[in-house]
């Protein structure tokens, strides 16, 4: 039997959260729950890459997966509904990763939403140019959404080259881009594109021809999309056509709706109390927004709310204690004579990156 990607990812994630979190928090991460707790967990445990990659996973199916891993002996039940990955589970995970390393470019935290917006555009752009370059002017658009259709129409209008040139340029950008990826990712992405005389292939069909499970094909496809978006943020100049398809998508920080409202006010120069008053929200809610924003936007005025010394101290403590339990960290810091609020703790940890050892 093929080892399934989803069960391996589950092991990987449970290994990361150790016994600090129940599987439910892992479930919330992969389904992309936008609660402050989940967003924070994702960052703390370095699981942000897998954030929101299974938006449609049913809770029951998730727990079936857990049960299966328990039965196989990959997981062991610990106290209070926590699980630990057994040595057998670890070995299995290693074996799987050696054989098929987890796709490296998947970054749900940054691109889950962006790729959902980007794919229909890319698909329709390819589909349309495929027809137009061959002088086929009547065809049924590959993507049904009127919004995307309008977008591509406008996008085409804004271009100066001929359709053939555009198609050739898009080809060369895509070819260069996909070249950088493992073959399975490139094939999954190219396979799902369609155009003149060539329909898109289903995940199941790709799974058969790539000899992968369907789930894995989907992840490979996501990997390609996230990689493209990642590359476009770094070097938009190298891929002008693709970058123009993604420009507005990449510009937005990914926040919950409510947090983005708070962010707007924050950018206008309001502080926490002013924002709570202005929006008629509890302080705690706006604090949650702040934590979310701090993890997302580079211009968050972190040090207005927590001093650099404390940030440093918190990170140090987390490393020393090898724990991310808020209460333990707070107690340790307070034992050394400093005062720190939970809000400050969360802010200090929300930016995550530097925490990596």
């Amino acid at each position: 039997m093929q080892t399934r990607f989803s069960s391996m990812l589950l092991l990987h994630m449970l290994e990361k959260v150790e016994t600090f979190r129940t599987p439910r928090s892992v479930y919330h991460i992969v389904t992309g729950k936008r609660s402050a707790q989940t967003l924070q967990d994702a960052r703390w445990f370095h699981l942000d890459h897998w954030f929101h990659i299974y938006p449609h996973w049913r809770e029951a199916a998730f727990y079936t997966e857990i049960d299966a891993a328990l039965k196989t002996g990959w997981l062991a039940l610990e106290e209070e509904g926590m699980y630990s990955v057994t040595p057998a589970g670890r070995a299995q995970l290693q074996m799987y990763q050696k054989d098929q390393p987890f796709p490296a470019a998947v970054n749900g935290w940054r691109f889950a939403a962006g790729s959902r917006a980007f794919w229909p555009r890319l698909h329709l752009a390819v589909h349309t140019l495929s027809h137009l370059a061959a002088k086929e002017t009547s065809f049924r658009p590959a993507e049904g959404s009127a919004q995307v259709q309008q977008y591509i129409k406008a996008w085409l209008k804004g271009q100066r080259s001929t359709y053939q040139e555009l198609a050739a340029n898009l080809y060369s950008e895509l070819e260069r881009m996909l070249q950088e990826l493992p073959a399975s990712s490139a094939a999954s992405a190219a396979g799902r594109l369609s155009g003149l005389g060539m329909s898109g292939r289903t995940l199941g069909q790709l799974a058969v021809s790539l000899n992968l499970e369907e789930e894995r094909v989907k992840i490979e496809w996501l990997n390609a999309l996230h990689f493209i978006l990642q590359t476009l943020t770094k070097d938009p100049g190298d891929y002008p056509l693709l970058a123009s398809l993604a420009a507005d998508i990449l510009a937005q920080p990914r926040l919950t709706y409510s947090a983005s409202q708070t962010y707007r006010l924050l950018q206008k120069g309001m502080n926490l109390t002013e924002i709570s008053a202005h929006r008629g929200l509890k302080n705690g809610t706006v604090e949650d927004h702040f934590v979310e924003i701090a993890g997302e936007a580079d211009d968050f005025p972190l040090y207005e709310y927590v001093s650099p010394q404390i940030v440093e101290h918190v990170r140090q403590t987390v490393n020393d204690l090898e724990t991310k339990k808020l209460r333990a960290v707070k107690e340790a810091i307070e034992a050394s004579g400093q005062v720190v609020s939970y809000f400050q703790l969360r802010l200090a940890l929300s930016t995550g990156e530097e925490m990596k050892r």
Partner: protein
Amino acid sequence: MRMSLEEGLHRFFGFENFRPGQKAIIEDVMHGRDCLAVLPTGGGKSLLYQLPALLSDGLAIIVSPLIALMEDQVQELRAFRMKQAVCLHSGLSQQERKVRLHAIESLKLLYLSPEMLSQPWMQRLLKHQKLSFVAVDEAHCISQWGHEFRPDYQMLGHVLEVFGRPPVLALTATATPAVREDIYTALRMKENARIHLFSLDRTNIRLFGESVMDEKEKQTRLFTILHHFQRPVLVYVMSRSRAEALAERAAEALNLRTAYYHGGMDAADRQNIQAQFLADELDVVICTSAFGMGINKPDVAAVIHYHMPSNIESYMQEIGRAGRSGKDSAAVVLYAPGDENLPHDMMLGEFPPPAAARMLLEDTSLHGALLTEVEKQAQGIGLSEVQARYVVYQLFKAGCFHSTNEMKQLSRPAVENVVRELSDRIMKRRKEKEAQIEEVKAYILFTGCRRQKLLAHFNEETVLQDASICCDHCLAVWPPGSEKVRDREDLSWQGRLQKLLLPDKRSNEKGGFGHE
């Protein structure tokens, strides 16, 4: 004045012309002649009784072997606003039967199973109706099942006498001369009965056979075909559990809408699957022989036998689901060494051990017991339902029951005699069925023209048609459209992108692409 046949055809069914043979047969039926009509699958046999029934005074009885088939036909008629049709079968409650028969005087078509027709209450009811004629659809069942498992088929001739012998129309698509003989006798057809024989060849079904190493390879092959081929597709298997397992795996592996169908499912589930299939909601149905007979879906692209059928008649019948709209379609049978054991074991399991007859006949508590009680007791001593029915029916035929259907008490030598005869009979039937299985195997492994081989079984000679659409050995290719898909898939991702976005590349490569 009565409507002309053409008017009726147009008015009730919306068809412009009769298909070959239809008009002559319908005229015979309208004139009250007994008829045996042998037309290919999809040839339009239903019309042969539906139209005369609608045009005649009185009620036409349609004897049909499967509940699903009856329900389907009645629903279709009703959909065309012909509300004077109902069906009755064992799956209905007493209440439902009453409702359906409520306006029997105004009915034109009554679909019944042979078992239902044998019920005394049904016979009493029908005796007082004016019957226009009795049609026996899928009449080969008389021969295939009538001998042992559905004895009521053998009783049909007798039942007809009860109704004052209305005209009989027997219909089938799979009748060898021997089967025709069986039908003839069982229905006690009149000497001047007409036989309408047409070629059974389904020219738009290309015939394929493939040998594989083992089960694993077979499954891979099946999935590959399902993956590349047009849909919908029917896949026949021998066992219920295999149908379920394969359906699950196919759904997982192929991202196709897949379902299974077998006799072990409850009636509602079976009806659902059939309805989904007819409504194009399924790509693949993995089924046992319980599915398909008479089912009329125009666009089935292929029928694949994952396990070989038990005889050529069933094969003919089952592949006849394909290509009914006239479009190119395919029939594929997959074979792995030893596959013949499956139908063989199943066949053996249908026969009871002859000693069971002795146990029943010597059971003093059964002397004077009714046939149905004996059958129950037969199951009590460990026979399966099928075996029990078989043994009791054989005892009945051997004269072990009084005319009141109560079991006789026989002397010891008489019992031994019955057991010996039963044992001989089972031996004989086993041999016959083994030979039928061998015939199927021979067809699969045959290296000449499959069409000729298949039709030879029905005593028919074929004129070689276009070799490219005949069979694998005549070098037929898969129906158009299916191979191209395969070409595309072998493209690398770079090749795919090129074809999508570089039109010049596309036209350059056209020469080597596809084949038609």
